[in-house]
């Protein structure tokens, strides 16, 4: 079940999504054998405290989060985590964030060449920061500028994580493809709000949060499919995958791989179960490999 994503061979198509797997060191129970790759929690160049609690709220088949990209910054990442990643048998990509295109570039330069850092996932889609984040993901020119700034500083794989908060994801997808992205990740969370009827104000201190989980899956499949139709680089599908069948929907819809996020909170073995379930499905349908799975990807 190995797949090649923008020049990088992964041992399987099921990856850990950013922000839902920490730095890969937290959950002892997890079966790592099935992990194709891990994307680290998003970081900025400098350490960030994140937002005040409450940071999460549950919703029907989903959850809102506004963590605010709490993280240790580049230096601590390099000293505390990268050395451990360097010893693992799967690649770790760093989810990078910035308040300007040049800050993204600076962070890339700082991390490029550090053993353990196998590539970059550019986050231009975080709904939970006051500066940057979503803004870059909404505007094709800004998205391309950030991608270029990162691309110039590294030869490692560069993935760009798209926001769903757009009228036409194809426009952004093509813009970042032209700017040198090796792959696209679709999608990040949708902006949502939930009201506390005791306090008569939003449940989250940040007021809004990003919606993840099974609730968004049909929307995510559509957006990943639209992105895949728009570009020639691989698209990694993300959003509400709980079981192998969910991942298979993204794969049939044109994705080359998938990331699993919120499911890990409910089931720390989710990645292994999704991976094994895909293998069992292929087997039961008589497909010898993932590449023989039929795809539904009409080109306009």
């Amino acid at each position, binding site marked *: 079940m190995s797949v090649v994503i923008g020049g990088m061979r992964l041992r399987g198509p099921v990856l850990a999504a950013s922000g839902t797997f920490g730095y890969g060191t937290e959950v002892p129970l997890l079966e790592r054998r099935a992990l194709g790759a891990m994307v680290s929690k998003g970081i900025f160049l400098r350490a960030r405290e994140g937002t005040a609690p409450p940071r999460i709220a549950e919703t029907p088949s989903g959850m809102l989060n506004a963590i605010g990209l709490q993280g240790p910054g580049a230096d601590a990442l390099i000293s505390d985590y990268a050395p451990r990643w360097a010893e693992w048998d799967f690649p770790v990509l760093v989810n990078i964030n910035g308040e300007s295109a040049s800050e993204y570039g600076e962070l890339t330069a700082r991390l490029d060449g550090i053993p353990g850092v196998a590539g970059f996932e550019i986050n231009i889609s975080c709904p939970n920061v006051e500066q940057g984040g979503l803004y870059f993901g909404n505007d094709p020119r800004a998205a391309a500028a950030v991608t270029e700034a990162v691309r110039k500083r590294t030869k490692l794989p560069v993935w760009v994580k798209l926001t769903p908060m757009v009228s036409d994801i194809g426009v952004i997808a093509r813009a970042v493809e032209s700017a040198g992205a090796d792959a696209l990740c679709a999608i990040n969370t949708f902006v949502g709000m939930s009201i506390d009827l005791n306090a008569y104000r939003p449940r989250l201190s940040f007021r809004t949060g990003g919606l993840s989980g099974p609730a968004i899956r049909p929307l995510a499949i559509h957006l990943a499919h639209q992105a895949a139709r728009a570009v020639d680089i691989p698209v990694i599908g993300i959003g509400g995958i709980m079981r192998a069948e969910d991942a298979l929907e993204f794969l049939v819809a044109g994705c080359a791989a998938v990331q699993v996020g919120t499911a890990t909170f*409910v089931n720390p073995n989710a990645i292994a179960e999704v991976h094994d379930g895909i293998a069992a499905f292929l087997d039961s349908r008589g497909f010898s490999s993932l590449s023989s799975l039929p795809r539904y990807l009409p080109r306009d």
Partner: protein
Amino acid sequence: MNLFLLDAPITSKRQVARGMFVIGLHAPEIANSVRAGQFVNLALSPGPLLRRPFSVYRASADHIEIVLKAVGAGTAQLLALEPGDRASCLGPLGRGFELAAGPQTAVLVSGGLGVAPMPLAARDARAAGMRVTWVHGARTAAELCAETDGETVIWATDDGSQGTAGTAVAAAPDAEVVLGCGPNRMLAALAERWPAAQVALETYMGCGTGVCLGCAVPLKGGGFDRACKEGPVYRAADVDWSALPTHLSYAVTA
């Protein structure tokens, strides 16, 4: 530290106060390794998406118990389970109370459902050689958890219907070791009186395993800790109580 994900059968259910029940689960691996103040994360399918955290109330060779009230959809569904039904149980989670061995005096202060970690805490404190006093408070007599596990308990009720009138914090004697659990508002009061107390606090949780950063606890020294990993037990003085939500809004109540 080991973590277990079990499909645990419910083995018992009994009422211990008005609306408050104890549920027993067959979970040998967790029962054998859990420490006072640690919790388990339960899930039902079909049911809410996220797991729900519950302190371990008691642990025997093969079984753990949790104590709960129906405050919303998840707890109501758990309470509808009968012996023989199953729940997915992840644990033990978090860091429990630290009880250095020695002949000290210990006071356990619990309010309402904060009774949850106290039977294990009393057991472990006694095992560490301490003299234990347990103070338990609630709004009214009917809401006091009736089980005392052989400990002498000082009762406190807001309305004076049993024991001292007033809060458990006010009713508690001084001691060298203070352990607290209850509403965050009560713990903030406890922190005023005993900055060195160990308190088990409550936050919303996404994962319970340290990966989501959803359970942020604001610290006096700045920044945030994870209640599920560095907590849920904290040195009372370390928490920035003014920035910790005092009231977790579960279901809609007036």
